[in-house]
């Protein structure tokens, strides 16, 4: 993984010191909360319902075991002994005291980490594919590019007060997009042109929130050395022309939509031509320097894992068999696999991990996966470089920690925002709904029968729980002080991106999970084969039959033609 040199290290150390000064000025009363707020927000420190929340950046979700141990130490020393992994591959602490935050930042800096720009109207932490570097289907490892973007965007002096927050994701697999790249302010795909040269397809203006958009392609082919100048041009156009009069219309997706793709592209290209051959042009030396840090680990030469894996799947140890079947993914390197470690254990809020689990998990990463791990945007962890022959040993260690739930990509592998239990913006709670779903559908045979299905829950329209792109999306709303939930079907975050549609009237808290059960029963009844996935059926039939299954036949209405969901063009 990327190793800080003295420059990178200096920046995070100076940041800790600077924020310490800002906290001192706040504590001594020399600045008011009103002035302090924009300062703390550039550093991931939010005021939540009950306490401050500190969001720690985990660039593209990659952590060393040493870093995870430090996160455990911080949870134990300065918080309530747990942390929460988020849908943006970050980690949140829910209960830090303000005066301890500078000390936490020092701890983070000591392991090459920080909380810079994890909130505020600036470029946020860059996200990527959690199987980057090991996926057989990728063109190349996208993480060096994500790291170059991280450095370019860190304390960018021109873009510290954008109209609104700004999120960038990088992917490199033509077959599968595992980072919801099309739903970012800027999505970058590594691509190849007709001459076989590597470069980038740059998409701009995706997002969720109250107006979900699938990002259109703005830069069809941006050469490798031009990546940063192209991004700078996009940001400069946004900074100059993005709306600042209405917070709900301030994201770049609104600007792209208002100008139209052609006009927006013309503005970007006009600006880009002025700077593309300037000092921001990447040098081969710099690209090589960063790529070199992501060189593959020292793999052993092993035979292909296929036979071994099927022997586990079909073997006597049923727990291991289920785990291997659902949570183990193929790998570039023969004999190795990538293991998804689910943080969706029954009765635990999705994404939460205790300090004890973190410490023990760091040991497992040392023992089984070259001392590294990844955080996924679905709030799970991944050990990406595990020898297939180590799976039985790893599985039994994980089971002892409550981390062997074999539910990857199944209905209980849901994601949920913190909701009204923590968040000041929420209209409804998310976590209790998530916990109820995990209980109701706990039976693993039923989960396997349902197959691949994603449930995503947000407690308000800001959509931190990504409800727009869940095969099943649940959105919490407030109706005269009571929590209600809307059910949405047909969303997908990947290359086949689509935005879910609302099924019908919202349900009170006690009725949302029963309504989901009706949806699932209908799916099982009408699917044409066991491998016709839930999302396939929704796309084939439209929402109408599901609506009837949930709400009963609409009185006096004739059957409506099936509705099409919106698909991305790829």
């Amino acid at each position, binding site marked *: 993984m990327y190793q800080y040199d003295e420059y990178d290290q200096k920046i995070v150390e100076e940041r800790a010191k600077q924020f310490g000064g800002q906290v001192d000025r706040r504590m001594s009363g*020399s600045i008011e909360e009103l002035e302090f707020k924009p300062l703390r927000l550039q550093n991931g420190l939010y005021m939540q319902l009950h306490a401050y929340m500190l969001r720690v950046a985990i660039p593209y979700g990659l952590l060393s075991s040493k870093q995870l141990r430090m996160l455990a130490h911080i949870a134990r020393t300065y918080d309530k002994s747990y942390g929460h992994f988020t849908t943006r591959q970050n980690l949140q602490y829910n209960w830090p005291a303000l005066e301890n935050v500078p000390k936490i930042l020092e701890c983070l800096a000591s392991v090459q980490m920080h909380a810079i720009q994890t909130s505020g109207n600036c470029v946020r932490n860059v996200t990527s594919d959690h199987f980057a570097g090991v996926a057989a289907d990728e063109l190349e490892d996208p993480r060096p590019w994500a790291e170059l973007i991280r450095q370019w965007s*860190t304390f960018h002096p021109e873009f510290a*007060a954008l109209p609104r927050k700004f999120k960038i994701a990088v992917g490199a697999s033509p077959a599968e997009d595992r980072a919801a790249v099309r739903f970012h302010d800027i999505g970058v795909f590594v691509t190849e042109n007709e001459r076989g040269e590597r470069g980038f397809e740059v998409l701009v203006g995706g997002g969720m929130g109250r107006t979900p958009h699938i990002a259109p392609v703005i830069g069809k082919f941006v050469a490798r050395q031009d990546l940063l100048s192209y991004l700078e041009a996009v940001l400069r156009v946004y900074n100059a022309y993005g709306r600042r009069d209405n917070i709900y219309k301030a994201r770049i997706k609104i600007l792209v939509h208002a100008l139209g793709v052609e006009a927006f592209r013309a503005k970007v290209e006009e600006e880009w031509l002025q700077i593309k051959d300037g000092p921001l042009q990447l040098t081969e030396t710099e690209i090589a320097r960063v790529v070199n840090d992501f060189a593959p680990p020292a793999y052993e030469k092993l035979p292909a894992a296929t036979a071994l894996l099927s022997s586990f799947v079909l073997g006597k140890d049923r727990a291991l068999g289920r785990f291997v079947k659902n949570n183990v993914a193929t790998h570039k390197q023969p004999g190795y696999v990538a293991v998804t470690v689910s943080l969706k254990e029954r009765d635990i809020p999705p994404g939460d991990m205790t300090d004890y689990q973190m410490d023990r998990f760091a040991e497992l990463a040392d023992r089984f996966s070259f001392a590294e791990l990844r955080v996924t945007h679905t709030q799970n962890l991944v050990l990406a470089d595990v020898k297939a022959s180590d799976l039985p040993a790893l599985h039994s260690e994980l089971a002892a920690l409550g981390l062997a739930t074999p539910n990857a990509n199944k209905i209980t592998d849901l994601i949920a925002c913190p909701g009204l239990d923590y968040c000041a913006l929420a209209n409804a709670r998310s976590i209790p709904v998530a916990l109820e779903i995990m209980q109701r559908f706990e039976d693993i045979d039923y989960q396997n029968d349902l197959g691949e299905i994603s449930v995503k829950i947000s407690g308000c329209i800001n959509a931190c729980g990504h409800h727009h792109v869940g095969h099943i999306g649940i959105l919490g709303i407030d109706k005269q002080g009571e929590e209600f939930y809307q059910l949405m079907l047909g969303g997908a975050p990947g290359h086949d991106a689509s935005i879910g549609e609302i099924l019908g009237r919202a349900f009170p808290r006690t009725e949302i999970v029963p309504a989901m059960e009706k949806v699932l029963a209908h799916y099982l009844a009408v699917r044409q084969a066991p491998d016709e996935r839930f999302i396939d059926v929704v796309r084939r039939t439209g929402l109408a039959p599901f609506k009837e299954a949930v709400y009963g036949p609409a009185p006096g209405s004739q059957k409506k033609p099936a509705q099409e969901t919106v698909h991305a063009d790829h």
Partner: protein
Amino acid sequence: MRIIKNARTGVDRSAQARIEDDAWSHVADDAEVPAQGDVIVGLARYRELRATFAKRAGKVGVRVHSNQEAKELADLTAELPLIAIEFPNFKDGRGYTTARLLRERFAFKGELRAIGDVMRDQLFYMTRCGFDAFELKSTKSLDEALGAFSEYSVTYQGAADDPRPLFRRRAQAVR
């Protein structure tokens, strides 16, 4: 009024940051321009009275709003001694782009002044974008604010103060 000034480029700008009495006065858009003294007027007024100002005793600088773009000043950068960019509130970051373009694209060499909702913790970004004079919203702790310029010794990006991003400086550094 007292303002903060700093050098535009140079390795150790923090050592050159200083507090000065302001020699300029702002003339509101609806107020009369005094016959003497150095004044800062709105862009529309400047264009209207440009010929008269050329003969005036005392310098005339221009003030722009956050929604006015650098290119609107393209033909004036050679003659203006001062451009003041207004930050109506700290959340409005358009002035950073305007400043960089004035310095880097339109070769403005005069004083570039940040006015409006200007606070200590924006000074570092502002100085990187090409500002060299700062009217802080509150002048009660100007001495303390001078410390803002020395909080970072390393920056990743090239900007108006040094066009080279860190990756070009890294390559040139003796390692």
